[in-house]
């Protein structure tokens, strides 16, 4: 074990250590000074971001090849860290107003983000599993943080039971992959598969179970049932953060593991992925249509997003397309991150202390009272639909292009139709905000409003430099063994 091993994981280590320190610091703070911890946590996340930028361009494995630092990891880590910074901004005032332990929430957020970053950097399936648990367990706690509110507790228990269920599948898959190849290390698995000394039945079983485990986390239909309930019950900042970060981490792990280790089973897996993607796009969008609660609407919208992401990933076995699908997936994530935080910031601003203000009808007249928030929400919705000039448009454009490149015309067609269909329910929110009369009050809390405006602005402005961003995403290479 050398120092360069630790260098590989440095951003995650910084976050982990800072999170633990935050827990201790919080213990010794008087009750009226608890606001210090979120601020310090924000500084910690920013420090992690700085370390991550300093390490960009490195490409090395560490800890006997169990973790890796490559362009792909640096890129995803950046997204994850920005997401956690945003989430801390979002929770600063919200948690105080809702009477939730905000300091613990921020510390847990840091620890959980560290888990996600390790998951992205995992080069060994056991490390992947441990990292998955490291980010999931704080998440279960965070979804149940609203003590005494039954919906939050139920959400936490549901998330916990189904989350543990999915990790059991993942772990069993890892066990069978070990049985098939004698390795849990991706490099070892690759060489075992190339050497031909593999038990095919175990291998297929392992891959399938692994896929189920990750699909749960990604909220892919038919493994999505937890998502709407958990998203509705959890505190809004946690929900917003979860909908972005968990998706990024699970997708990145899926990309890395399948592209590196299992291109040889692509012939069997790709059709399954195609069906899953189609189902996810259809079910997510159709069920979003009937929602009246904004949090559930956004939950189904995030399920639909997982479908689009998966669509570009279906042809991962075709060498050339694989790198395109990684770039397209990462690029879509940028847009998804900014649009989501814009939307969730507005939701957090409009939500009332007694749990009211979450219906779509409650947004009537928001444009008149709070034009900035309404415009931010509108930009987020337009970006979700995929209308130019927003990042969402370019994101979907590249996803569709990748699917067509892989020869999946039918899938791209389904994606396009469901996108058109989704315009209906997204625009309904906009119509309610701008056309219907009402006296919607929103909080004028600095951080939340700032976040809404900044995210929406980024969604809009970054759409004018899509090529540069795509170049950035394309340089996010995977390190092959």
């Amino acid at each position, binding site marked *: 074990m050398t120092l360069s091993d630790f260098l590989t994981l440095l951003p995650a280590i910084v976050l982990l250590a800072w999170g633990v320190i935050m827990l201790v610091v919080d213990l010794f703070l008087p009750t009226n000074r608890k606001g210090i911890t979120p601020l310090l946590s924000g500084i910690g996340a920013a420090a992690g971001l700085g370390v991550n930028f300093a390490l960009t361009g490195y490409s090395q494995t560490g800890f006997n090849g169990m973790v890796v630092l490559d362009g792909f990891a640096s890129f995803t880590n950046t997204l994850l860290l920005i997401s956690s910074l945003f989430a801390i901004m979002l929770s600063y005032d919200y948690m105080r107003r809702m009477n939730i332990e905000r300091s613990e929430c921020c510390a847990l957020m840091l620890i959980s983000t560290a888990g996600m970053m390790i998951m992205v950097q995992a080069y060994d399936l*056991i490390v992947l*599993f*441990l990292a998955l*648990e490291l980010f999931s*367990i704080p998440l*279960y*706690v965070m979804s*149940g943080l609203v*003590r*005494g509110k*039954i*919906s939050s*507790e*139920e*959400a*936490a*228990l*549901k998330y*916990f*039971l189904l989350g*543990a*269920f999915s990790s*059991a*599948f993942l*772990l*069993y898959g*890892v*066990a*069978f992959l*070990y*049985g098939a190849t*004698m390795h*849990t290390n991706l490099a070892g698995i690759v060489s075992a598969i190339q050497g031909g000394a593999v038990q095919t039945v175990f291998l297929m079983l392992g891959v399938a179970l692994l896929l189920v485990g990750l699909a749960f986390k990604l909220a892919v239909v038919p493994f999505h049932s937890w998502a*709407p*309930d958990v998203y*509705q*019950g959890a505190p809004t900042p946690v929900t917003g953060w979860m909908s972005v970060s968990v998706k990024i981490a699970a997708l990145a792990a899926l990309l890395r593991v399948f592209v590196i280790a299992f291109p040889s089973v692509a012939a069997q897996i790709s059709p399954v992925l195609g069906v899953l993607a189609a189902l996810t796009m259809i079910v997510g969008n159709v069920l979003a249509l009937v*929602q*009246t*609660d904004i949090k*559930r609407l956004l939950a189904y919208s995030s399920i639909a997003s997982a479908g689009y992401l998966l669509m570009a990933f279906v042809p991962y076995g075709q060498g050339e397309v694989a790198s395109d699908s990684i770039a397209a997936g990462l690029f879509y994530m940028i847009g998804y991150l900014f649009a989501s935080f814009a939307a969730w910031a507005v939701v957090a601003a409009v939500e009332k202390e007694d749990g009211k203000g979450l219906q779509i009808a409650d947004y009537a007249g928001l444009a008149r009272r709070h034009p900035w928030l309404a415009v931010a929400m509108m930009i987020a919705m337009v970006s979700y639909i995929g209308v130019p000039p927003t990042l969402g448009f370019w994101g979907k454009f590249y996803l569709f292009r990748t699917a067509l490149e892989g020869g999946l015309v039918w899938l791209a067609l389904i994606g396009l139709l469901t996108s058109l269909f989704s315009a209906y329910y997204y625009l309904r929110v906009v119509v309610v905000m701008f056309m219907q009369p009402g006296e919607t009050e929103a909080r004028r809390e600095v951080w939340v409003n700032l976040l809404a405006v900044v995210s929406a602005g980024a969604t809009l402005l970054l759409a004018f430099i899509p090529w540069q961003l795509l170049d950035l995403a394309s340089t996010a290479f995977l390190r092959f063994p």
Partner: protein
Amino acid sequence: MVPASYYLILSVVLFVLGALGVLLRRNALVVFMSLEMMFNASNLAFITFARMYNALSAQVVVFFVMTVAAAEVAIGLALMVEIFRSKRSVDIDQMNTLKG
């Protein structure tokens, strides 16, 4: 000497029983126990393969899985106690506050 395949079959049986338990049982505590069974089925599979290949590495995995399972027990029990305080029940069918 018992053949390794027997252990594997036992592990599959345990895993399937656990999965069925999660899907069919209504008491959250029993669901929870079924989950533990699934984790232990994985442990058994790891140990079996480790013995088949004479490799130590997979046996170490079991330590980590045990620790993770313990952490999950802690979270799960805490959540259940919390729910029981407000609902006086941990029946999954009664968890219907969230609907849409």
